[in-house]
């Protein structure tokens, strides 16, 4: 059963150094608050997994918490590069980062296999690409039709961290809208931490594609309102596109990045302080937007 706890305790207890961690979300419901907590607690040597590593992984990588990244598309969506990720890959700054990359279809198949308790997923993919010779993919032959297909190994993270709209009093998790691979990555993981916008008496069905994770598939639940900022939680918050655009300038410069992280992540007590700084218009003070 899910235990209600603070995010600080959940990350301290469930994310030891060296863990294989998936903080998922497909541009919606990104667990920023939890990512900040990982950074504040100075976790080290994490293997990060995410289909679309975006600004939160840029921050985690830029602060030196990760030694490996498994991904399929790493960018600032609609804006451009992740400069901290690039600095790690191109210049080993602040430390070397091993990368393993796939296609989205391959990563989705890997998570679905992990959730299914199978050793690999199967798809028509990668054929003829340079990814084939480079990454963790193999050719298999369909035993029924003889067709050549591709196999990709299951992903089973030590810890999955996601953000959702609601949890009820028993710890059942409700989310809707673009839910990406969150159900698969939760069911594939050894341990699951969920932050939610709101604790409710009963989960409400207010949007498309309503997905429920029952309490007994989750380990820790923390209420963190606006915990996906600058991403969004459909029905609760809207995407802060100006922040994503402003992040380009903040993250481009090593020193500016360090100052920003110190001020808004390292030296605050928790995500509430960050949201107060956001409300005061402080987050983008350093850049012209």
């Amino acid at each position, binding site marked *: 059963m899910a235990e209600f706890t603070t995010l600080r305790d959940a990350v301290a207890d469930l994310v030891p150094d060296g863990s294989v961690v998936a903080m998922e979300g*497909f541009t919606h419901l990104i667990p920023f608050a939890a990512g900040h907590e990982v950074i504040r607690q100075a976790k080290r040597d994490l293997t990060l997994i995410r289909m679309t590593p975006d600004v939160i992984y840029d921050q985690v990588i830029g602060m030196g918490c990760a030694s490996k990244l498994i991904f399929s598309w790493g960018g600032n969506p*609609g804006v451009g590069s992740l400069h901290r990720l690039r600095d790690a890959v191109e210049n080993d700054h602040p430390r070397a980062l091993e990368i393993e990359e796939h296609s*989205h279809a391959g990563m989705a*198949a890997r998570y679905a296999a992990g959730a299914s308790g199978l050793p690999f997923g199967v798809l028509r993919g990668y*054929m003829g690409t340079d990814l084939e010779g480079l990454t963790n993919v193999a050719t298999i032959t369909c035993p029924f039709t003889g067709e050549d297909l591709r196999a990709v190994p299951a992903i089973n993270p030590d810890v999955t961290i996601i953000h959702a709209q609601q949890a009820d009093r028993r710890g059942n998790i409700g989310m809707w*809208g*673009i839910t990406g691979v969150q159900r*698969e990555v939760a069911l594939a993981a050894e341990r699951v931490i969920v932050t939610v916008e709101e604790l409710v008496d009963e989960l409400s069905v207010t949007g498309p*594609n309503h997905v429920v994770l029952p309490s007994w598939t989750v380990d820790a639940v923390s209420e963190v309102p606006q915990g996906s900022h600058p991403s969004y939680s459909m029905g609760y918050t809207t995407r802060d596109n100006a922040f994503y655009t402003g992040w380009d300038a903040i993250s481009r410069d090593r020193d500016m990045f360090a100052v920003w992280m110190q001020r808004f992540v390292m030296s605050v007590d928790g995500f509430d302080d960050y949201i107060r700084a956001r409300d005061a218009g402080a987050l983008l003070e350093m850049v012209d937007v």
Partner: protein
Amino acid sequence: MSEMGYTTDEIMSVVAARHLHDGQVCFVGIGLPSEAANLARLSHAPNVILIYESGTIGTSPEVLPLSIGDGELASHADLVVSVPEIFSYWLQAGRVDVGFLSAAQIDRFANLNSTVIGDYHDPDVRLPGAGGAPEIASAAGEVIVMLRHTKRAFVEEVDFITSVGFGVKGAGREGHRGSGPSVVITDLGILRPDPSTFELELVAIHPGISVDEVVENTGWELQIADELEVTGAPTSEELSILRGLKERTARAHAG
């Protein structure tokens, strides 16, 4: 803005939109493809079905999404499904007529690179990576490619094959379900693969653009079609719909 009364980006979007037909099912990449696909939907192809890899199917956003997972896409969709489902039940199963892609590099045989410039293990530029592109390029019935025409983008051989067009040295598409890139639309003109050699050939130039200009901006010895056409200029209606969409989008994204 050129003296023609439109920008190079605008003619690229308008021409790309014209290649999308009413009722087609289109898997849309973010950026220029998204702009062109929505222009088609708001003009001559009101029943085009737009799918984004975030799992939004049949979506009709009022403003262009900044990211592939904007709430705008989810709240205006016929349905929203998970990411494993969009790639397996919808794309891989062959339900997509047209894939609409962009890239950082394209080569003579329409292979696309969105992974790295330079050596993979010691890259000059690390690009975002594959995303959904390899399987869109493989499984969609056909692929429309859009990118700005420069010598850096149009290269003899891409540094990394992220998505297969017609393979290394035009080896072909064995094993792929879709027929591959049918057209490449740039800010200078239109290229199509030769049906037998698969080599991209210049088939049209945009108004006011010279063949020399296209050749100079292409990193291989470009074949020119015997009957080279000149693209029809964007109409005032096309431009007004496109500009309206972009103005609404800019207002929405300013927050």
